[in-house]
């Protein structure tokens, strides 16, 4: 039987406000346990929440960026459940009136096609603290530093039909969020987390199959693998005549499989009701317009601009705008070097290759945009050849000197002195009489071999165009 997959994603993003959602505590990452927990965060009796409007601004910023409806009156609700790292015994979230309503993202798939994936809603809520189960001798420790940090939960429509689409959606979301500067969105650190709802059904069916939810996956790659393995699992069960149980599952990366984490409790009843300690948050068109006016250039717009302004392919432009930092880096290289095309090649191939190889972020790169621009400038003004430039690039990783100093110290400067080049040419002509004869007999392509010999002799420093010209001249 042919199956089709239906996936919905719930993504939690930590909003990068300076203080928590309802208290003045700092949200700085990595502080000692409970040093960023105020009396409100500890849920002392009598304490009350005060809404951090910065979180609202960030949520609206996200909403307008994805063209979503913005809730002009958002209402906070209490979601009740007991857990030691949930100090109030309820989480404050938005149930019926979220700040961000329906919107959509356009993703580009590997075959170059585009797909629009709907966003159902995005609501603001508070994070829980952390339970620490080690080092406490049979007891558990509670760290409330994270309790009350603002989250934006972004819920997709169940319109994703493959692991590839899921990852493309996540990456697009990640890119937009980073462009908007509303979160670090680092999956490995938990500032972006993803829950995946997966079901399958026979192709053509309109009813959704029973879904499972895979919780808290912390990398794009694991999202992809978890979906593939879960789809496989469901397919095997259904093809064996079995039945999918609606449950929460966890992805085990070591075994590349999902396992049930169903608790013994039956369905949770969170007993939501409007939070009486907070007033509804009311905003007007003017507020939304002001947020919109402050939006940065977003990835799609930037991609179109790059393609047009720098005469790049849509694909190349897409690679360059995949992160805001990379796009900004590229623009510096392009403008300072004066060669957008060459800059695009160096950034998307050499630089990105370097980052991927070392698993670096752009900020970790020892080659700053200004240095790369200078390197390209030196190719263009014939100081070095493109090939020598690769050597200089390698050297730049360890050597922080400026590009010219490296070229000078290493003696990599291209030879353009025609007298010197003539010496290489003469030597090559006298050492290769057969090839010279072939050329003279009309086998023009032999020229490539001869140029190569000259370059070798000059250790790559000779200007290839000059060599070419001189060779032809001498062999006439």
């Amino acid at each position, binding site marked *: 039987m042919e199956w089709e997959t239906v996936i919905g994603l719930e993504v939690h993003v930590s909003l990068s406000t300076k203080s928590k959602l309802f208290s003045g505590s700092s949200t700085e990452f990595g502080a000692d346990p409970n040093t960023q927990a105020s009396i409100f965060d500890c849920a*002392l*009796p*009598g304490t009350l929440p005060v809404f951090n409007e910065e979180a609202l601004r960030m949520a609206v910023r996200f909403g307008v960026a994805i063209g979503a409806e913005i809730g002009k009156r958002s209402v906070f609700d209490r979601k009740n459940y007991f857990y030691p790292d949930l100090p109030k015994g309820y989480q404050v979230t938005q149930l019926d009136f979220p700040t961000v309503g329906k919107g959509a993202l356009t993703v580009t798939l590997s075959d170059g096609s585009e797909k629009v994936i709907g966003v159902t809603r995005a609501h603001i809520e508070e994070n829980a603290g952390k339970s620490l189960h080690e080092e406490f001798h049979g007891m558990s420790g*509670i760290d409330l530093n994270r309790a009350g940090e603002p989250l934006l939960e972004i819920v997709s429509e169940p319109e994703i039909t493959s692991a590839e689409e899921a990852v493309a959606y996540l990456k697009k979301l990640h890119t937009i969020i980073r462009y908007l500067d509303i979160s670090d969105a680092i999956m490995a650190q938990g500032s972006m987390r993803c829950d995946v709802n997966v079901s399958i059904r026979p192709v053509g069916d309109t009813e959704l199959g029973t879904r499972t939810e895979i919780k808290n996956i912390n990398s794009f790659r694991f999202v992809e693998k978890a979906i593939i393995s879960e789809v496989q699992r469901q397919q095997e069960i259904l093809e064996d005549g079995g039945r999918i149980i609606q449950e929460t599952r966890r992805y085990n990366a070591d075994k590349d499989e999902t396992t049930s984490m169903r608790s013994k409790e039956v369905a949770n009843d969170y007993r939501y009701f409007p939070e*009486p*300690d907070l007033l509804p948050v009311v905003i007007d068109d003017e507020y939304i317009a002001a947020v919109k006016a402050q939006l940065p250039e977003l990835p799609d717009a930037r991609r179109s601009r790059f393609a047009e302004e720098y005469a790049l392919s849509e694909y190349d432009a897409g690679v360059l705008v995949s992160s805001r930092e990379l796009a900004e880096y590229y623009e510096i290289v392009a403008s300072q070097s004066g060669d957008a095309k060459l800059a695009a090649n160096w950034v998307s191939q050499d630089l990105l290759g370097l980052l991927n190889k070392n698993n670096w972020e752009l900020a970790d790169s020892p080659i700053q945009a200004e240095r790369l621009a200078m390197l390209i400038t030196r190719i263009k003004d014939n100081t070095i050849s493109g090939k020598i430039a690769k050597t200089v690039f390698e050297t730049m990783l360890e050597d922080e000197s400026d590009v010219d100093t490296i070229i000078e110290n290493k003696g990599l400067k291209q030879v353009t002195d025609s007298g010197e080049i003539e010496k290489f040419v003469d030597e090559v002509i006298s050492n290769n009489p057969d090839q010279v004869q072939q050329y003279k007999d009309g086998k023009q392509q032999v020229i490539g071999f001869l140029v190569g010999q000259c370059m070798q002799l000059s250790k790559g420093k000779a200007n290839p165009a000059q060599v070419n010209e001189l060779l032809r001249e001498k062999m006439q």
Partner: protein
Amino acid sequence: MINSTVAEIAAALKAGDISSVEITQAYLNRIAKLNGELNAFITVCEESALEQAAAADAARSAGNTSPLLGIPIAHKDIFCTKDILTTCGSRMLHNFVSPYNATVVERFNDAGTVLLGKTNMDEFAMGSSNETSFFGDVKNPWNTECVPGGSSGGSAAAVAADLCAMATGTDTGGSIRQPAAFCGITGFKPSYGRVSRWGMIAFASSLDQAGPITKSAEDAALMLNAMAGLDEKDSTSIDRPAEDFTASLNQPLKGLRIGVPKQHFAEGLSMEVEKAVRAALAEYEKLGAIIKEVDLTNSHLSVSAYYVVAPAEASANLSRFDGVRYGYRCEDPVDLEDMYKRTRSEGFGEEVKRRIMIGTYALSAGYYDAYYRKAQKIRRLIKEDFDRAFAEVDVIIGPTSPHTAFKLGSKSDPVSMYLEDIYTIAVNLAGLPAASIPVGMANGMPMGMQIIGAYFDEAKILNVAHQFQQHTDWHKQKPGPIASSEGEA
């Protein structure tokens, strides 16, 4: 002097006739003598009170003229007080010393008042008789076999028995007004949002409001001056320009339109109370007021709606008492679930548990629409009733409670206890201000009259109450047996 009003004590302090240390010591003596019998205080802060009194006297010498400077006060034990036990009348917080002050406490500290101690109350303010306190029943100073009312019963008894000059209370469904009526004193519940709830341990967040418990309406105005005002720490507190609530106390009542809700004079009201309130209305007519009947059509629904909304909010508000971070924790829990279950089973009393269960039920999937949503609808209807009434009248007057204080232990059925607040609850549901002032005596026990105003009409209510007290002396009546044994300063 201890049986004087705040206004009188303030005048004496100002004139130098008495020092804050002297009056504070007199109250401490009175507490030492009577608290064993009345059980009005859970904590008495003898040492710090005398220190604060000395500081107040020094401040006065240095030129401080704050109207409440050096006046001894008692706070209901629902207000968090820094470094002082704050129990909320519960075993759950029997060992809880707050690291911070409630805004109300902070404002009285800033005004220079002297904190005598923390008063007993129904556990988590859930009760109308003060019998649900983990720290024992409070006795009514007029008859120690009777309840003082609740939940602010400790504050009401303390003011009535002259254990303090004034006290704070909180009112979620009548918890200031009903004990004020039972103890023969003045109680005032401000408009919702008028007084900050920061540091006031939550029972039902959308209904809770702090207010003064005093010996006169004028004193209530003085207290309200200190308590009221925007607090950025409470998002539901309202930004209003500062108001002097004493300013309009002496406005003549000529032409005042008093609404009398027929629903508050219906079946269940005792004859004595009805007679006393009717007599008061006659008094107002003499002062030039016009009496009009008003129709609060939906008032019979108020108790039912309240007992959905308040327990629903309480069920969430009390979730934080889980034994994890502070307060009571059961002995040797075997695991998390055992800790939760036993901590909460042992830490909460019966009435609190009952309300958590009611609230949990009302919010449960499948019942939410039938209970919580419906109760909110009723709430709107009740508010609309009041809006219609206040389009025609300036204040609404009726009884505070259907009868005088009942005997301790006489109401074992929770529903009959809930019906105690039949006249007061609608006011909380609508968020309105209301006072209860003494209106007469029956069989040696005081009775109360409720004066309800439109939203933010505190000053008008205080004016109406004060004028009554200028022409009657019900508020000056003192409980006999205790008054005779007093040791005055």
